[in-house]
């Protein structure tokens, strides 16, 4: 381990130190949220700064196990933003339920560490460890409201299935490792390239490994038919955490896909392409269809997040189909989705500030009258999720569809399925709008006071949602640089 290595992983270290700092602060001022939050924000700011500093030049460390490239930087910034927003949104929900903020922040920052590790790892083992480091805190967060039956139920379902899938994933990883004889991503790719070049059909062991790994990854990103945990875990979790869970682990899983499938298994792309197409179609369709019938907004958004996995997979499929734009679309979609979905969950969380308020549709009845600003913001996020311009969601959707159209062939049909799904999805998103603006409130619940943190976070999410839609050029530059870092397809 050289000093240069240490510099390279500085953001990671900073994140870990942030967690440690919060821990210390919590020990000094036990049970107080302000110092913990301060520590968290300072630490995350430092982390972000380091990400940007280190990310200014490409580098590898630890003998190629850890890579800093544009993709790493892009994803790291995204992850840090997600965590910052989640922490901004959380106190308003946690404090009335006397849930500690400090532990929440610590666990969340650990998850951040895992996600950042995935983004930077070019080593199979590190990828696995990063994945575990990302999801283990997720299990805990899902059960964070430990006196709540729903929260713990969601947590145990998430945990059991998550561990199951981790084991499956690991099994597949072992096979691939055993066949290629290396854990380094580039070496794996090179080995696979020779294997594929040598014998046209996929060797049985590799096929097995591919299937097992696909299952594991598909589970983490909540693709149908490996999505089952999602609705229950999302619904049960405390709402800000649901927001995080719907975004962080999902984008993290896609980061894993990028490093693992795109980079390491790139030579097998034509093998996993059909699977991705099928998964994408199934995921979009089932997610949207079931979401149509949900009365609980959180659960509905859980299914919606499944559907969004499908859309993102379209981007992946387009890449496998030969268009680097697919990766751009995937990354853009991930970022756009992160902000709009977090925003939507933040509004739900804000509504649930008063303990006992459910997330059923009825809660939203008359919101347009009671709290017009929140209702307008919610509408914006929902429109973005629907894909109505000029929002982030629209451009993201257009981008993945564009990529699919460029790839042509069966992917054109995938694009058609995607837009039909988007149209169907409009029904349930707009239903919330119906309740907010077109129904009278069920009771005369007064408007609630919301904290400055929440408003700040919402402002940020709103701004980003609009900016991504109106002026995507900057982001496009970033995502194309990021995808060029790993893509083997010329632009």
């Amino acid at each position, binding site marked *: 381990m050289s000093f240069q290595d240490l510099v390279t992983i500085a953001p990671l270290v900073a994140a870990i130190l942030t967690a440690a700092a919060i821990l210390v602060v919590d020990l000094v001022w036990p049970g107080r949220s302000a110092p913990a939050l301060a520590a968290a924000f300072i630490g995350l700011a430092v982390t972000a700064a380091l990400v940007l500093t280190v990310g200014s030049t490409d580098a590898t460390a630890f003998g190629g*196990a850890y890579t800093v490239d544009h993709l790493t930087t892009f994803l790291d910034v995204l992850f840090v933003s997600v965590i910052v927003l989640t922490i901004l949104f959380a106190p308003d929900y946690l404090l009335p339920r006397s849930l500690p903020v400090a532990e929440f922040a610590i*666990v969340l920052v650990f998850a951040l*560490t895992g996600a950042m590790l995935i983004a930077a790892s070019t080593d199979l083992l*590190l990828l696995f*460890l990063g994945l575990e480091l990302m999801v283990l805190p997720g299990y*805990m967060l899902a059960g964070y409201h*430990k*006196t709540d039956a729903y929260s713990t139920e969601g947590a145990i379902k998430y945990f059991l299935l998550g561990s199951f899938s981790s084991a499956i994933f690991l099994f597949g990883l072992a096979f691939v490792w055993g066949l290629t004889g290396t854990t380094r991503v580039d070496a794996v790719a090179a080995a696979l390239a020779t294997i594929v070049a040598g014998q046209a059909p996929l060797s049985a062991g590799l096929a*097995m490994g591919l299937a097992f790994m696909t299952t594991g990854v598909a589970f983490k990103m909540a693709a149908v038919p490996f999505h089952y945990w999602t609705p229950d875990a999302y619904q049960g979790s405390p709402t800000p955490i649901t927001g995080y869970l719907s975004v962080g682990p999902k984008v993290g899983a896609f980061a894993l896909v990028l490093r693992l499938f795109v980079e390491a298994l790139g030579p097998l792309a034509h093998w996993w392409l059909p699977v991705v197409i099928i998964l994408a179609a199934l995921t979009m369709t089932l997610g949207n269809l079931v979401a149509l019938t949900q009365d609980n907004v959180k659960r509905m958004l859980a299914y919606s997040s499944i559907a969004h996995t499908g859309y993102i997979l379209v981007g992946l499929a387009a890449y496998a189909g030969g268009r680097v734009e697919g990766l751009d679309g995937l990354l853009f979609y991930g970022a756009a989705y992160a902000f709009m979905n977090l925003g939507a969950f933040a509004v739900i969380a804000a509504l649930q500030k008063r303990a006992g308020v459910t997330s059923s549709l009825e809660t939203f009845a008359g919101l347009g009258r009671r709290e017009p600003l929140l209702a307008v913001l919610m509408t914006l996020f929902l429109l973005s999720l629907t894909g109505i311009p000029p929002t982030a969601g629209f451009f993201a959707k257009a981008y993945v569809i564009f990529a699919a159209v460029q790839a042509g062939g069966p992917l054109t049909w995938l694009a058609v399925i995607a837009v039909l799904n988007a149209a169907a999805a409009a029904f349930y998103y707009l239903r919330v709008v119906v309740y907010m603006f077109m129904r009278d409130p069920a009771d005369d619940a007064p408007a609630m006071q919301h904290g400055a943190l929440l408003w700040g976070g919402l402002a940020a999410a709103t701004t980003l949602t609009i900016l991504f839609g109106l002026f995507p050029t900057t982001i496009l530059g970033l995502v194309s640089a990021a995808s060029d870092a790993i893509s083997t397809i010329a632009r």
Partner: protein
Amino acid sequence: MARTLVSLLFGLAVMGAVLGIAVVMLVFLGQDWKDALFWVLAAVMIGAGLLVVTMRDIIRCGLAMIVCFGALAGIYVLIGAPLIGATQVIVYIGAISVLILFAIMLTQTKDAPARLVFQTQAGPAAILSVVLAVLIALAISATDWGAATHRVRIATSALSSVLFSDFVLPFEVVSVLLLAAVIGGVFLAKREPGGPS
């Protein structure tokens, strides 16, 4: 009392069978003692594994798991990875199994053993598992792993050098992972003052 006796007899029968296999292989088939040991350990591991997933009393399941992991540790030694075998014994038998047993004690309700052990879907699950095993076995046998015909023994020193050069980052990450798990685990398992008892 009769139950205990039956299980005891069952255990003895298993042991007898295992030893029998070993004897048969060594004596009558004239195979290498290592092979015999492999068979014995494999049989014990699989047998104990089956017991883990089928036995009614969860405490015994836990004990069977210890047996299973013990046999696995033996295989590790046999295969030339004694360090892993040792770790296996320490971590699994020494820590995890104990942890699990504690958890069993903590969550044990009196009526639990009397009720159904299996889900209603045990049948399909069994079929699926068999299919899975067959698939894996088929895939393995159909694959050219490029493996040596002989085991390679790895020196512990080589291992440590690898661990602290190429794999130093994973090593550190695992420590963070464990830290996170501990913090989370403590938080979750900690009894809240106001929470349900």
